[in-house]
């Protein structure tokens, strides 16, 4: 199960394929890898398909808009081949169509990888793992956790501010000047109270003996086991396999150059 993989290792296993996929400009490679991510997502996690689709739909929109932009405006290196169809003033060639679909599929891969990580990772464990595996200083680890815990408080404060404004009859702002003013009315009090909280919570932590000593004990020990390495090898290995396969079939394209 992916939710028990070490978060730091999972981060690497998700980021590396994301970076490497940026090299390809053919349809086959990102499509195959996307299918692989889907298989991993639905066979090795407990995410329900409906929930996944709901979270994935913004990525789909983004991918379509990127693909459409690339199709219409691809440059000469990427827009060879026959004209496929015309749209208003634009002509879409087979080359630019292919590049567009490839770019769209690539961002679908990013989205699916990202969801795979986010839906299976616990926030606190992620930070603890960053501290223990990547040697992030404890001061930064717990500093981040302390700040992030204030999110619900901020939401509550935002609501209070809104109600306070309404009760005093401050109406919704109109125009650019009005919206700048409105932005200031919300942002300054929110930030000011945030900074006060930062000060208070850090004094409280330090007065209770929190130091930046890297040589500390941990309540939750995060370890890297064999299966964490296996997961990393799986994610990278399949990517390499897809690249090789795509080269073998003659699809592979890196930066518009056919291999």
């Amino acid at each position, binding site marked *: 199960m992916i939710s028990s993989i070490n978060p730091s290792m999972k981060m690497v296993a998700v980021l590396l394929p*994301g970076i490497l996929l940026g090299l390809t400009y053919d349809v086959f490679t990102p499509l195959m890898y996307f299918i692989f991510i889907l298989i991993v997502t639905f066979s090795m996690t407990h995410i329900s398909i409906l929930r996944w689709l709901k979270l994935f739909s913004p990525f789909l929109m983004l991918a379509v808009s990127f693909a459409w932009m690339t199709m219409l405006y691809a440059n000469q290196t990427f827009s060879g081949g026959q004209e496929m169809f015309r749209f208003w003033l634009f002509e879409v060639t087979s080359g630019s169509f292919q590049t567009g679909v490839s770019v769209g599929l690539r961002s679908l891969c990013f989205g699916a990888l990202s969801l795979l990580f*986010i839906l299976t990772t616990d926030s606190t464990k992620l930070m603890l793992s960053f501290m223990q595996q990547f040697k992030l200083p404890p001061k930064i680890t717990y500093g*981040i956790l302390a700040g992030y815990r204030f999110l619900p408080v901020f939401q509550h404060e935002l609501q209070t501010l809104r109600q306070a404004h309404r009760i005093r009859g401050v109406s919704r702002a109109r125009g650019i000047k009005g919206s700048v003013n409105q932005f200031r009315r919300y942002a300054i009090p929110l930030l000011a109270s945030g900074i*006060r909280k930062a000060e208070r*919570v850090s004094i409280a932590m330090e007065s209770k003996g929190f130091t930046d000593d890297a040589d500390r004990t941990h309540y939750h020990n995060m370890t890297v086991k064999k299966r964490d390495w296996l997961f990393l090898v799986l994610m990278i290995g399949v990517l390499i396999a897809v690249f090789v396969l795509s080269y073998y079939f003659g699809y592979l394209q890196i930066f518009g150059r056919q291999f």
Partner: protein
Amino acid sequence: MTKNWRLKEIVLMSILGVVFGVIYLVFFIVGEGMRNILAPFGLAPFGYEIIYGVWFIAPIMAAYILRKPGVAFTAECIAGVVEVLLGSAAGPGLLLSAAIQGAGAETVFSLTAWKDYRLRILILSGISTAVISFAWHLYSAGMIALAPWLIVSTLAVRIISAALISGVLGKWLSDQLAKTGVLRGYALGKAWQRKRKHASA
């Protein structure tokens, strides 16, 4: 580097990350409106370019308030981590681009040896962040396949957004905060107090 940072400064960076993470979501709706108008012409991603500067506010404000080496880079990385912690669907990718953007912001401050925090330096820092993050997107989002005029105009929009939102708005917000007195314990607040003493003397 982290040795001479105090815990409250790190928590402050984290809180900046949280607040602007929330504010970005508000701006995101504006971006989506723009996108829907531009979508048929294939220019949908432009809608987001306009609000891109919001991403760069946290490092520039943190550097301006705390005035220490490495703050801009760390603050942007923290903002990226916070985004992951909040469960943002684009999390891990944001972490990567945050590190790249943070490096862009830090470069300009390092060139002034972390001594100069005038408006022009903040704007330059925003511009450098925009350029470096754009270089990354040329690669990762496949924008290098686009027509040269489109690449140049996208970059121009991002630079303007970064200069205005992160440079000008970031400085203005920090100064407004300093006026309230909450920054008394940080470098910017101390600079304000000194200025006030000069004015009254």
